[in-house]
């Protein structure tokens, strides 16, 4: 069952260069479409600056998208007014990257977790406390730690608290924006496992944004690869990791360590830097760094097409 359907979503940020000069835009998200089913996890990978975080934020309307459609449970939430929006926010939540910045340093954990319930007028004080207490138990924080402040917890614990806050309203969708990249490797897997357990228990759908290919592989059902504001490849996780089609995906995966040392893989090293999203290259945005690019790539903009069953890529040579 489809929970979320994104159609041609664009998020352009104006950069003012004073009056007199022409307006320029950063095309952070530039025509992204995909669907997400109930209970599914969609991983989104890409280098920093590719627009994956902007995508997450614009789906939640934390930044107002420039154009496109966001159908959540069949309704286009971009047409929602303030009140409808507030109501639908209960069903879609976000977990942030930096567990040090995502909790108000001057609030206790209790009030941080109670805030969402208060905002939406759920339950009386007693009921809210009951709910919070049962929730923290699930994420491995003790009841008697509820009146502590964020700085009294470790990074991993804070991230768990951030997850608990997203869960208080019992949402259907959680967008996790690099939720483990600020954590120690040893803590990462614990938090990832927590995500998996909670998904089973509450039948959650995740959009899991990360630059870390192995993390995404571990948690996702399907994976989308982003480059300069566009999805260049989208497929089931096994298809994508075993049989990447797009040259960009191939080069990313070639950097991954292989568990079997007898197997050899050629490492593809990309030349040049990520181009500026203010002035993206014409045609296929990847042509400036693509090892197989031809002159056609400079003029022709490839669309994201289904190349194999359930396997989409945006490259004219695939």
């Amino acid at each position: 069952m489809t929970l979320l359907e994104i159609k041609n979503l664009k998020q352009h940020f104006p950069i003012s260069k004073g009056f007199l000069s022409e307006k320029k835009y950063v095309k952070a998200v530039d025509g992204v479409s995909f669907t997400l089913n109930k209970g599914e996890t969609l991983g989104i990978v890409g280098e920093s600056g590719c627009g994956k975080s902007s995508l997450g934020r614009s789906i939640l309307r934390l930044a107002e998208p420039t154009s496109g459609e966001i159908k959540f449970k069949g309704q286009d939430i971009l047409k929602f007014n303030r009140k409808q929006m507030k109501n639908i926010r209960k069903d879609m939540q976000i977990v942030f990257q930096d567990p040090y910045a995502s909790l108000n340093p001057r609030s206790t954990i209790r009030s941080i977790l109670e805030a969402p319930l208060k905002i939406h007028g759920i339950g009386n004080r007693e009921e809210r406390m009951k709910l919070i207490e049962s929730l923290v138990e699930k994420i491995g924080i003790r009841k008697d730690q509820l009146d502590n402040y964020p700085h009294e917890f470790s990074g991993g614990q804070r991230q768990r608290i951030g997850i608990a806050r997203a869960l208080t309203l019992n949402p259907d969708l959680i967008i996790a924006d690099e939720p483990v990249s600020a954590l120690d490797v040893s803590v990462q897997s614990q938090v990832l496992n927590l995500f998996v357990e909670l998904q089973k228990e509450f039948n959650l759908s995740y959009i899991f944004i990360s630059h870390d290919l192995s993390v995404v592989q571990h948690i996702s059902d399907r994976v989308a690869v982003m480059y300069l504001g566009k999805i260049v490849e989208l497929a089931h996780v096994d298809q994508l990791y075993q049989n990447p089609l797009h040259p960009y995906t191939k080069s990313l995966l070639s950097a991954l360590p292989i568990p079997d040392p007898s197997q050899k893989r050629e490492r593809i090293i990309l030349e040049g830097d990520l181009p500026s999203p203010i002035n993206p290259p014409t045609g296929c945005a990847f042509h400036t760094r693509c090892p197989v690019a031809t002159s056609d790539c400079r003029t022709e903009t490839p669309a994201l097409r289904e190349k194999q069953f359930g396997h989409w890529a945006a490259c004219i040579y695939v």
Partner: protein
Amino acid sequence: MFRRLVSSPLTVFGFLVVFILVITALFAPLIATHSPTEVNIVNKLQPPSQEHIFGTDEVGRDIFSRIVHGTRISLKIGFLVVILSFPVGTILGAIAGYFGGIVDQFIMRTTDIFLSFPGIILAMSIAAALGPSIENVLLALVIVWWPWYTRIVRSSVLAIKNAEFIESARALGANPFRILFKEILPNSIAPASIQASLDFGFVILAAAGLSFIGLGAQPPSPEWGAMLSSSREILREAWWAATFPGLAILFTVLGFNLLGDGLRDILDPKQR
């Protein structure tokens, strides 16, 4: 925090001065040895003695007792001006910083206009328009002072308004009012409050200056600036009439400055 406070002798000195000032203001009638306003012509222009430790003025009033009572006036002005201008400036600064756009432009251009006058000059013309009285000086100083807090708070709000915990509150559906007062303000008010603690002294100084040129407290009020103003006519005969009220102003401002500096060092070690 206490150890760091004690480790700086200047801060301790500032704290002591402010403490003594507050005690003096609270118990002025008990500390003063004479009436601050009672005229005693026979006793006029007495140099400092055991009876009148700071001497007497041109109509025989005890200068020590006048200074003690003047403490009340000065501290009251310092307190009221800060307590009235701080919330106004803070809220406007938070609104400007958080909402941005037209609102921000309007508020910040307004502060620019206020800050394009040297403070004392603007306060002077406002107080002159309202007419000379201590209440009007108070009002004039409030009008002059708020834009400073607006600027400071706006810049600290800008620094945190895109923090993830603010975004998280928005994602939860919190309204802007709640975000501003529950999430942003508690985390961005510290620099402005340090400034406010420093400002007590500067407000007292400005108020004394305005009284000195005849705009604030009117004689026979024992306000320090007004006392200094009338001491000029007897400067040749009575050095003490000018010296002690001025020292009172100096120590008061110095005390508040030292305390404010100390607080800043403790709360914001980067500034050291």
